[in-house]
């Protein structure tokens, strides 16, 4: 993931690199924040863990059917890409900012 970003920087595409950086940061932060909870859930609540995985799999299945519907309406890939990129950007940036704020809050609460 991080290697891809560096490769993109080397290719001179800074906008894409920035976007990849935001996503990588988001995923890493969320992974970091949730690591202890994930561990607990996996250890002591395997059914819940399984349920969460099933839910995410549902999104995958829903995506396949939604892709078919979009294709049936002949909506071009470029248009879908633009819409997805816009919402992906706004949602991921705000979510990342919120997560960073949460980390700072926790840090202040723990070390106050």
């Amino acid at each position, binding site marked *: *993931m991080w290697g*891809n970003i560096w490769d*993109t920087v080397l290719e001179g*595409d800074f906008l*894409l690199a920035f*976007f*990849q950086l935001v*996503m990588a940061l*988001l*995923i890493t932060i*969320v*992974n970091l924040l*949730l690591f202890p*909870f*994930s561990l607990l*859930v*996996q250890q002591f609540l*395997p059914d819940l*863990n*399984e*349920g*969460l*995985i*099933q*839910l*995410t799999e*549902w*999104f*995958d299945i*829903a*995506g*396949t*059917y*939604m*892709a*078919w519907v*979009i*294709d*049936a309406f*002949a*909506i*071009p*890939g*470029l*248009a*879908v*890409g*633009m*819409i*997805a*990129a*816009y*919402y*992906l950007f706004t*949602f*991921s940036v*705000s*979510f990342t900012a*919120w997560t960073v*704020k949460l980390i700072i809050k926790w840090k202040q609460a723990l070390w106050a």
Partner: protein
Amino acid sequence: MKGIVWKLSLFLTLSLALSLAFSFLLSGKVNAASDFDNAIETTTTLRVSNPGVENFVINNEWRLPASSGYQKMIDNEINYASGDYTGINLSWSQQVSENRNVVKAFYENNKQYIVLQQCDDVNGCSIQVLFGDDFTTFTMERYSSPGLGMSTFLRVTGNYLYYTCAGPINRGSSGSPDATKSYISNCFSNYNSFGSSFDLFLAQDVPDSGRNAKVYETFNLNIIYPPGYEGKEIGNINPNDVQRLKPEFQWSGTKEGLLNVQYLKNITPFLSGSFAVVINKMSDNWDDLEEEVHNEWYSPAGWLNENIQLPEAGYYMMRIDYNQSFQSPPWQEPYPIIESVYIQFRWDGTNVIPHGTNVICEAGVICNTEKEETKEENKWWKLFNSLDAVNTYGLTAFLLAPINFLATLPAKVNNCQPVNLPLLNDNISLECLKQRYFNWSPFVMNIYTVMINALVAFGVAFLVFKQIKDINTPQKDSIEVVKL
């Protein structure tokens, strides 16, 4: 802050509602299967399932007699156990005259296999190995047709890779487990098909007086994740979706009239062996082969960084053959595959046209330096593809599900797959339609595409400008603070 919390709450609520709906629909599917069983004339139906126990062991072997005795098979004891277990060993074997058909499904060293051995007098024997993923269902179906006698089929549904190794093998054996297992490693060297449903003809018995009878055996094998992958989604084993690094090559022309071809990255690891660069001179527009101008093998140590003399300006096709170690699913032993990259380019005597082209070309696809960029080369596709490969699981996957959904949606739209309606009828498959529209009326569809793209571009631009404007506009609270 409030917005994010609100969105997350909405997402959680929607997810729970959807999961409930999904569970309900799934339960409907199970009920439908039960109804189907009730229609079977022969009442001997055994369903191995134990929803109360997470893992179970089936350690048994049944033998199908040549013509009858199927009842005896299902009288065997089935043991359930929770907790540790050593493996699943399901076997069916049958010997009919000179024909030997063996089906084995076993679970060993965190690997799940189904091994199918088929022999007949004409074609000899072959072994087929199905590498299962997730919940794989085996259904043994035995039915008769008037005049054709009783037949037995094994139906396998679920996601799997399907390997085939041709015989002849071990014709004298009826297929002991050990004898069969020894062939598995050989079978992994190539795969020739994949899918989600498979019927295997096992045996045809003597006519049974025209009686229509069906017997079903269903076994649900619960996958055990390999160490380090507990709880993670094991990637889609459909070969088209397996993440594979695409080799990158770079080339440039020198003033001396040489073509410099250089390997950049992503063929990892190189195995012992070699790779080759073959350059052919082609007729105009790469229509026909004129002559081979270069054909050299290179050692792994030297990689590829060669200056190649091309005879004259013109159209050329370069083929680079290389070895790649392929390992997917992750618990599978890596095995080498040899693939080729095909690149069409034009040479003006000093430069490749366009000059300084970097090529990222997928194996098996003919790339052209002058044609428009492919999906894989598009930077946004690259981004979406890289996100698709991120391993997240459990809580993280759940929280990032909408983002991941958005990120992967364009790729899914672009690679539209036919969908079926499993709850209504498994046989109904809805084909993707966009290409058909384009075939009907490309002119209308091109206009429609441009219009939609323009409309969406306008909408997205409007939203972006609105957001920028909102950022620059002082919020009501801050104005009031300033006033105070």
